[in-house]
């Protein structure tokens, strides 16, 4: 039995539906999924940005100032706003999924999923706070 041949007695032809290339626009949840996967591009971009910051730092104050003014270009700012939304989406989906992989136990008690993702968020806020504090106080 397969789908290639025509029907013959007692050998039904199965109907197979091929998944279309753009399967992921057919359902909202799939769009969210592809969106989540594409946040990795923003993540990679941030890596590039950080490398550029390092290059500027290594090359001296002028290069650094030039980079800073480049970053103030409106088009770049818009780009960064989108990138920021993407990495935020990345963080949120990541923290929500993390309890799925981890099971923590204290004695016989299993730490509930909500506490694990809650713990993630707490750590996130703390770390972000430290970074912001360090940055702002120079």
């Amino acid at each position: 039995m397969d789908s290639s041949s025509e029907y013959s007695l007692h050998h039904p032809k199965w109907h197979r539906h091929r998944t279309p290339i753009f399967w992921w626009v057919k359902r909202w949840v799939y769009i969210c999924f592809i969106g989540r996967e594409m946040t990795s591009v923003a993540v990679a971009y941030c890596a590039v940005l950080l490398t550029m910051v390092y290059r500027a730092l290594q090359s001296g104050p002028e290069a650094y100032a030039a980079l800073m003014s480049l970053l103030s270009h409106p088009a770049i700012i818009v780009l960064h706003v989108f990138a920021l939304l993407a990495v935020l989406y990345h963080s949120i989906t990541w923290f929500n999924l993390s309890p799925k992989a981890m099971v923590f136990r204290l004695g016989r008690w299993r730490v509930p999923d909500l506490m694990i993702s809650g713990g993630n968020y707490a750590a996130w806020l703390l770390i972000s706070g430290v970074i912001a504090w360090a940055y702002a106080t120079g």
Partner: protein
Amino acid sequence: MSAMKKSNDPFWWTLFGAGGAMTAMLVPMLLFLIGVATPLGWIEGPSYASVSQVMLHPLTKIAAFFLISLSLFHWAHRFRFTLYDGLQLKHLFQLIAVICYGGAVAGSLVAAYVIW
């Protein structure tokens, strides 16, 4: 079930996961400060001197290298599967894997060169 050969996926997946976790924690705030808040003048960015003092500290350098490299591997792994599934390019799997992971390796090397 086809070939029982040991998969390399656990290796890439580990890098992907480590990168995902690290970036999820660090990147949004960094990007917000450097890419949005400072350019818009919401806060004043630190001076070149203080930035380089912190950033060029050997420990920071190591951390930054890890962040950059793992981010790239995070991207490489996810992007590879998105190409497979989203665009149904599984038949090009070797080429895609080489481009994605190769890109991440190359990027890491460049970063190392730049940082040190």
